[in-house]
């Protein structure tokens, strides 16, 4: 049997010639479908070179991506040119009016500024800090498992618990202010929860705290691939730990850094929960700490006063920003490599 299957070039029907009855017909049909291309191939690999086979294997993924990614995206794009309401009803084509409204809307620009700031501050820190953490816990020392688990705990903590814990930390009479006051570093409490800028910065801290453990795992995997020989050679040449980190470790995990940068960039532009937890439904006093997703929820999703068309236009703007940042990150990394 093995010999028969290994000789597909013998032509259709050969492999199934020993099979009697209706089964032979089915195998002949399959044989035609897998027939090698004009080049022929003695080892049978050509069976899998039909142009449509890759499409066939990836079809489930393509269907999922089209259904849950492409279709909603295109639908959002179409919606952005209408005055659709969240609960349906008749939507009218309104041309570019949602986009012109967006460009003249101060609240949109405020949310865009906050989202961009969020990404600009969080991304570099989120690329670097988990790497340092990974370097710290990489070594196999007694009890290191405890620290790895401890750093990972915020990742699996519930958002509600995290929000309450951070409020408790940041309140005027919370742990941080109490410590600072006791250390005579401040006289009046720092208004972490009533100043828009500080709410934004605190939310960034929360994002970092929750993400450190997650990306630390990425880096732990990547650090395993950095050659120990390079470290040893650098050490023998007199390079200290800091120089080895910058000149051996960082280049060794560059691709992971890019991945973390892109993922964090996308996550930062989509941030909502942290602001909501620390700044209440208004997004801080005066709504001054609102980010783009927050703004989209306010203008586009409410069943009573939402305008899904306008919300979709802002979503498209958010997509453009995300795409821009991703491309920028790729370009910068490519430039570095060159």
């Amino acid at each position, binding site marked *: 049997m093995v010999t028969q299957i290994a000789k597909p070039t013998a032509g259709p029907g050969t492999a199934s010639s020993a099979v009697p009855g209706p089964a032979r017909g089915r195998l002949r049909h399959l044989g035609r479908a897998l027939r090698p291309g004009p080049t022929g191939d003695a080892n049978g690999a050509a069976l899998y070179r039909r*142009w449509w086979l890759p499409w066939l294997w990836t079809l489930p993924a393509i269907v999922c991506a*089209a259904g849950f990614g*492409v*279709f909603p995206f*295109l*639908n959002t794009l*179409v*919606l952005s040119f*209408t*005055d*659709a*309401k*969240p*609960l*349906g*009803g*008749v*939507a009218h084509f309104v041309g570019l009016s949602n986009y012109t409204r967006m460009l003249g809307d101060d609240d949109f620009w405020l949310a865009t500024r906050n989202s961009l700031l969020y990404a600009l501050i969080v991304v570099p820190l989120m690329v670097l800090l988990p790497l340092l953490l990974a370097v710290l816990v990489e070594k196999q020392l007694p009890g290191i498992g405890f620290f790895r688990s401890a750093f990972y705990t915020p990742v699996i903590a519930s958002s509600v618990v995290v929000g309450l814990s951070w*409020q408790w930390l*940041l*309140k*005027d009479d919370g742990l941080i202010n109490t410590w600072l006051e006791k250390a005579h570093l401040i006289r009046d*409490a720092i*208004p*972490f*929860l*009533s100043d828009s800028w500080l*709410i934004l910065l605190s939310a960034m801290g929360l994002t970092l705290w929750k993400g450190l453990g997650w990306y630390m795992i990425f880096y732990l995997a990547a650090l395993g691939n950095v050659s120990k020989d390079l470290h040893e050679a650098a050490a023998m040449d007199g390079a200290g730990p800091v120089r080895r980190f910058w000149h051996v470790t960082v280049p060794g995990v560059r691709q992971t850094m890019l991945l973390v940068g892109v993922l964090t960039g996308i996550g930062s532009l989509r941030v909502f929960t942290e602001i*909501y*937890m620390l*700044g*209440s*439904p*208004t*997004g*801080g*006093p*005066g*709504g001054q700490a609102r980010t783009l997703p927050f703004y989209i*929820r*306010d*203008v586009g*999703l*409410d*069943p*009573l*006063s*939402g*305008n899904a068309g*306008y919300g979709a236009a802002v979503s498209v703007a958010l997509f453009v920003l995300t795409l821009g940042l991703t491309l920028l990150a790729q370009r910068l990394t490519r430039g570095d490599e060159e």
Partner: protein
Amino acid sequence: MRARRLTASVAGLIVLTLTAAGCGLSGGDSEDGEATAGGCKVDQQNVGSGKLTGDVKGKITFQTTNLKKDFGDFFNGVIDAFEKKYPGTSVKWIDDPGDAKFSERNVANAQACELPDVINLNKVTATALTKAGYLLNLDEKDPEAGKPFVKAFWDSSTLKDPSGADIHSVLPWYTGGINLTYNTEMLEKAGIDPEKPPTTIFGLFEDYEKIAKSAKGKYFATMANPLWRIPADWQQMDIKVYSDDGKSFVFADDPRTTEWVAWMKKLYQGGAMPKDSLSSSDDPSTPYSNGQVAYGSTNPSFVRFVKQNSPSVYKKTGVGQYPFDKLGHTTGAPQYIGTAATSKNAPTALAFAKFLTNAENQTAWCKDPNVVIFPTTTESLDDPFFTTVKGNDPFAEARKVVAEQLKTATADEVVLSDPQRNAIVAEVQLAMQGKKSPAQAVKDAQEKANELLKQGG
């Protein structure tokens, strides 16, 4: 060749997607003459005129809002009784957590034509679903549905349908009421008589100010976030929030609104409210139980929370009537029960909605010793349990206060969407921080709220 074929396929997919997206937008009445509700194809008898008929049998879903934890036994009992009364029926109970994404989840369910058959709603969501045609028109489908209810509550369930006509689309359920809960010791220290609660909102603000002066930063009068007070305070002061036709906000036209904001600023900056509570989601429940604020939540059932969590503060707790101010009575904000027009089993769904809200079940639930809630049916309110409240502990006092106010209460709650309320609150917060004058904040708040009202159509 293959590349061209692939390009053509992708282009075809895009056209198909865009077409499908376009179809999704059209909504409204079905062009092929089929009955639709909110863009979903439904059974012909669920919409239009004529009573709903049909056998009460089959499966339905019933959604409550955050009630399973405390009242699981009660609702399981009601469901069992319904299924026993109507053999062949089955009710699947789901409990929404009622968090910040409550509206979004319901919108998504409605858009997917999968709204639960029977659903517990607040007035805002009920208004939105009725406006989009997702709830049964009870005036047509069951003209007798309103008979068991107190007139004020039945009137409050009048909402606008997609054509703008007034219809009843929900059944009133239970109502909570509003009262003042305070730490008598802190009030006395500030020279306030706990037995004589203020009768106006500004009178209450004066008391807050007295507490701030006597507390000297050790505790506060109340929480700062105006989210808890808008539009309730304004409505109590009889400030007109909407224009007569409901197409614009007019609260800024009343000088008392600016005065109210000026008071809030004075109280915030004068130490009557914790600085970090300006945009905090916390209501006063926990700080009150910890002895950090003098006034607790205005929800009468809050007293139970204090009793359970802080017996020492409970002993000092007093309960008083909420200031009726210029309105002269309170405005109830009942919960409602709606029946989805998209239900595949509407007769059963409507039967269950009526069963749940009937006098017997409302009376049984509202007698729960752990809550201060009142029924909305006439027969239930005649029950001695609600007319002659016994005892003089804070919990009993809360019941008495609400029973008293319900004699004159109306239920014409002012409906603000969350974004509209947030927009107004945000401007008031800026004024409280001194970043805007109260007059400017009120003007800007009205402008932003009007923009949202306009875009909502």
